[in-house]
């Protein structure tokens, strides 16, 4: 049988698990300020996460999807993007969002069950969190198509989880992005689990990056706990997209160090040993080790950073907790540009019973 097509999937790791460079690093990795900024946002994610889980446990927040373990992937992606690019997130990529200007308070407000959390002051054009798995992927294709039509040198970046790669919408979006050479990068965050289903039961594919092959576009794996590796791979993919060369699939290999959400209990299904092993590879330690090798970090800086970030988180909690309940009018007032007549009466009824709880 004649061979008519051949493909391969590459894997990139620029910092090993001890924080040692595996070879020559990109320019930004020699810029201590830039590295410290990444480290700052990664640490912010970690502290924010703990606080959010705590608020949920004490009844002050709704169900929350933690991000612990994903910080390098999320921040690496954010750092590679330009502000004028557009992000289509799933629900736990706070690192990217914080990098781009979403505020801690907005995140709290969202998980507190209030649409106002999605009204990002910055970045105005980013999509809000997207709960129906994979349904965000065609949005990114559409955004990218708008950039292409208008000849703007901008890119869309869209996240999806390992579980999300089972949804048809994901493949459809890869395919259209390939067929129309759209400026979009698909970031698969392979954190090993989709709630209780391990990636090995989700698919027979050895890598998730190879999903790209179905669409005739490049796919690459990166160590998702290596923020330098992630940022580098993303920068290249974005440069390709911006140059009109089309989409790329990036699979970031990381691990969900938390329960799926605060409504989940991973001990029911996840081997304890796996979690323990994963903690050894977690991304903050790695970047810190590298920073220390550069002489750009020490315990004093660490302490100061954590103190200032904790204060930042506490301040956001304040803002969140002092945000008054939305009015019942707000159920109606954003549905259409102008409220149709029949809803005026319903809005009155809702006002009348406002605050009622049965």
């Amino acid at each position: 049988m004649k061979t008519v097509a051949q493909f391969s999937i590459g894997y990139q790791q620029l910092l090993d698990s001890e924080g040692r460079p595996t070879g020559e690093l990109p320019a930004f990795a020699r810029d201590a300020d830039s590295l410290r900024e990444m480290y700052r946002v990664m640490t912010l994610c970690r502290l924010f996460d703990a606080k959010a889980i705590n608020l949920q446990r004490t009844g002050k927040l709704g169900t929350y999807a933690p991000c612990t373990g994903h910080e390098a992937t999320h921040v690496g992606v954010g750092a590679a993007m330009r502000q004028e690019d557009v992000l289509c997130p799933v629900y736990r990529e706070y690192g990217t969002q914080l990098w781009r200007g979403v505020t801690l308070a907005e995140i709290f407000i969202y998980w507190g069950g209030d649409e106002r959390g999605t009204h990002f002051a910055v970045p105005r054009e980013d999509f809000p969190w997207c709960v129906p798995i994979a349904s965000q992927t065609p949005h990114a294709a559409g955004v990218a198509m708008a950039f292409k039509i208008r000849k703007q040198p901008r890119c869309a970046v869209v996240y999806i989880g390992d579980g999300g790669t089972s949804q048809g919408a994901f493949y459809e979006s890869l395919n259209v992005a390939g067929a129309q050479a759209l400026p979009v990068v698909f970031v698969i965050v392979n954190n090993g689990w989709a709630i209780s289903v391990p990636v090995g039961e989700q698919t027979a594919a050895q890598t998730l990056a190879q999903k790209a092959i179905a669409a005739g576009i490049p796919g690459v794996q990166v160590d998702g706990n290596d923020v330098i590796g992630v940022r580098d791979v993303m920068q290249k993919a974005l440069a390709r997209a911006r140059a009109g060369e089309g989409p790329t699939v990036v699979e970031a290999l990381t691990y969900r160090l938390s329960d799926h959400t605060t409504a989940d209990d991973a001990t029911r299904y996840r081997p304890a040993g796996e979690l323990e092993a994963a903690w050894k590879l977690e991304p903050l330690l790695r970047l810190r080790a590298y920073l220390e090798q550069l002489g750009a970090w020490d315990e004093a800086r660490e302490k100061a950073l954590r103190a200032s970030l904790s204060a930042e988180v506490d301040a956001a909690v304040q803002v969140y907790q002092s945000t008054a309940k939305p009015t019942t009018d707000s159920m109606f007032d954003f549905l259409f540009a102008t409220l149709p007549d029949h809803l005026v009466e319903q809005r009155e009824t809702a006002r009348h019973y406002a605050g009622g709880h049965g």
Partner: protein
Amino acid sequence: MAKVTLVEAVNMALNWELANDPDVVLLGEDIGKNGGVFRATVGLQERYGKLRVQDSPLAEGVIAGMAVGLASQGMKPVAEIQFMGFLYPAIDQIANHMARMRNRTRGRLTMPIVVRMPHGGGIHAPEHHSESLEAMLCHHAGLRVVCPSSPARAYGLLLAAIRDPDPVIFLEPTRLYRMTRQEVLDDGLALPLDTCHRLREGEDVTVVTWGAMTHDVLRAAEQLALEKVSCDVIDLATLSPIDHDTILDSVAHTGRLVIVHEAARNVGVGAEIAATVAERGLYDLHAPIRRITGYDTVMPYFRLEHDYIPSVARIADGIRETVKT
């Protein structure tokens, strides 16, 4: 002024907006070189290029989902679903995103989208090519659902739909695509949404209908006129939100209400009209409300489609019965 068919009127409206609004972009299956399986987009790709009139891959979910992405950037996508029975793969995007994005983001990202599709049966097409699924769409808040009944209304309502800042589902009755010709001025003037049209004035009974059924209702009304039964025929035009006031006014006058639609009866749009009159116009009713609709079965393959779609005889009998009561 040219006499045009409904499908030509659709083409005229699309052409007008493409010419006058650089943000308008068309996407759908086979809408480019082929001009659409019903020829609604014929000539448009040639005129406006492959980016503004795009052949989409065969995936309704992507068509609707890309429309969401395009709209978030301020473009005005007009998406075509080839037949209404193929709407289902797009419904997640329509219900969970198009209908909700403005509300979800408190007005930050808006969805000035039109999703066009053929509606209804009667053209001897294969399975899934003759569906009437408006009820499912109307139930979802955040959408407008519009269905024209003539070339002129198709032109004016489609212009209005494209210019509307919110998502509009635009249902084009397949039976009417080429049924009649009408003079339509290509003047870029939109018709108002959210309002019924009175097709015929009458005293004895209010008959509410939409889309292709308007023609059968009018024929029944003509027959009945010979029997001195006079029908107030209302074309719903915007199926959601419904212009209940016009219907209630008419019922206040006639005391009787018949609703005619092609879709299945159970939890159809007719039920909403009947329910609203039973709530707000009960004391005006001199007789039970009557719905004359498709049966609560699957739309049959085409040998029986005219046994499924309410016939002029069935409509006339129903109105007669109602007027007698």
